[in-house]
């Protein structure tokens, strides 16, 4: 049986009269990398802030490592790494000072890794944080979170401000570290959907404060496909209403984009049997899912 790392039960958050999160229920298992996607204002950052205890719950409960959030000890919290959507670090400290300040909180702090990453990303040790670019601050925030050797790494738009090369480098580090261990878990919110697709085991889609869908990447890749077909004449309604077709988008007079959730082979054969000009298969991506629910 898989070990639960994070468990959200009917999580609600209201700011005054406004409901920002409505009963979000979700599990995150140890060893997983889970993505959180959704349009701006969907409630992603609010959900992450609730998990991190920066916001108080309006309803529901959050369990981390099988313990209610409010009951977590300092030792439990030291197992959680967090990078916020804004890399706001102490401006009055230098890079080395903030590393030294941060290291004290984490018994499992990895100084060797920290030195290595600092060199690799060419962070100026004695430079005050206020003089760093946004990208460099984001790198520093990621290094701080990675060097505490967290069991659960929570990242809220961590790659904003990073150039594509740095983004890939950090993704590789996360993949190397977190896929090699069965206990280490990542929960990441990002708008870089292609990159999420590369690293995530599951993706949760949130919209207007509601969790619309949690899907395994494997399922998305294998089971969900899109058929693009341009028929020579109008197809019969029975073809378009075959079980397994989740969504139909029309392209021109006789062109269709069929989103297929299951029963793929039968639908594909039926389309192929009807006179057509074009018949193509596309694998579904997170981006397609994003468009479905937005």
């Amino acid at each position, binding site marked *: 049986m898989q070990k639960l790392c994070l468990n959200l039960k009917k999580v609600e958050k209201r700011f005054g009269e406004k409901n920002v999160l409505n009963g979000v229920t979700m599990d995150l298992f140890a060893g997983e990398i889970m993505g959180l996607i959704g349009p701006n204002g969907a409630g992603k950052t609010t959900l992450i802030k609730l998990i991190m205890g920066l916001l108080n719950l309006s309803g529901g409960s959050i369990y981390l490592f099988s313990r209610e959030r409010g009951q977590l000890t300092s030792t439990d919290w030291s197992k959680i790494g967090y990078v916020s959507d804004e890399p706001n670090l102490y401006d009055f*400290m230098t890079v080395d000072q903030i590393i030294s300040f941060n290291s004290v909180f984490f018994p499992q702090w990895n100084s060797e890794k920290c030195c290595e990453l600092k060199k690799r990303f060419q962070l100026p040790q004695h430079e005050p944080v206020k003089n760093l670019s946004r990208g460099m601050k984001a790198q520093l925030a990621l290094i701080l979170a990675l060097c505490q050797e967290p069991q659960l790494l929570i990242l809220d738009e961590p790659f904003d401000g990073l150039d594509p090369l740095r983004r890939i480098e950090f993704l590789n580090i996360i993949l190397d570290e977190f896929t090699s261990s069965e206990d280490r878990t990542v929960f990441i919110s990002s708008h870089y959907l292609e990159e999420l697709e590369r690293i995530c085991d599951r993706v949760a889609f949130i919209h207007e404060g509601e969790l619309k869908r949690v899907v395994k990447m494997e399922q998305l890749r294998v089971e969900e496909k899109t058929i693009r077909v341009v028929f020579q004449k109008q197809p019969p309604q029975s073809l378009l209403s075959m079980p397994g077709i989740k969504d139909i988008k029309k392209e021109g007079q006789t062109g269709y984009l069929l989103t297929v959730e299951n029963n793929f082979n039968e639908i594909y054969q039926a389309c192929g049997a009807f006179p057509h000009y074009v018949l193509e298969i596309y694998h579904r991506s997170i981006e397609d899912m994003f468009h479905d629910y937005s």
Partner: protein
Amino acid sequence: MVIRNLINKELFQLRWILIVGLLFNVGTAVLLVTTFNYLAGMVTEIPGEMIEMLAQYEVTRELLYIFEDYTIYVWSQWHAKNLFQIGALVVIIITSTQFAGEVGRGTISFYLTRPVSRIQGLSAKVASGVLLLGITVVSGIVVTWLISLVVGINANWALIFSATLLSFSWIIAYYLIGCVVSILNREPITAGVITGLVGIILSLPGFFPATRFLSLFYQMRATDYVILGGSFWPNLGISLVLNALIFIIACRIFKAKDF
């Protein structure tokens, strides 16, 4: 270790206030001690009939009284004037920086997501604030004492230091009120202005003899204790209970606040 780390961070962040406060206090202490003999000498040279004439006015009566006794002189320059003025100013600056400033700069999420409870986080901030205030406020008195020893002017130092403890305890009450205001605000300037306004409101009872004991700023001067011979322990006890109550309120607000 963790709390000490947080306190060090606060002190490092507020180091300029500490340095400026120390320099100001040391400078004031040096001036205060070295000019006493000169000023007191000037007063003794005033002819008797002129003193009788001047004694009709309260201001000059007070002035003559101050120069009669070095203990009263030190009290009048520090507790009755500089301590609460500097204290109030430092309170406004540090409280607005410590909480609303941290929210305004967005660093509060970094602070609160270190593995410490909110109460520990708040306690570290309050402890560093009290320490900083203590150093800033008490430094002037200590330097005054040391220079007086060197120069050879005697005063009732037990009275001066116990009055300083009373003043400090009441300054902490204002500091904790400032913390509450700053926790409730997201902008440091707004928090500073509101703390200042609250200070003005709290000083109002001090303008009327019947209600002056209710004024925080009147209590900061320790006038009842030094001049009127009031009791030390009840006054200290009341201020400590008040401080504990405000601290509990601050804890509750800080714990329930969304950041």
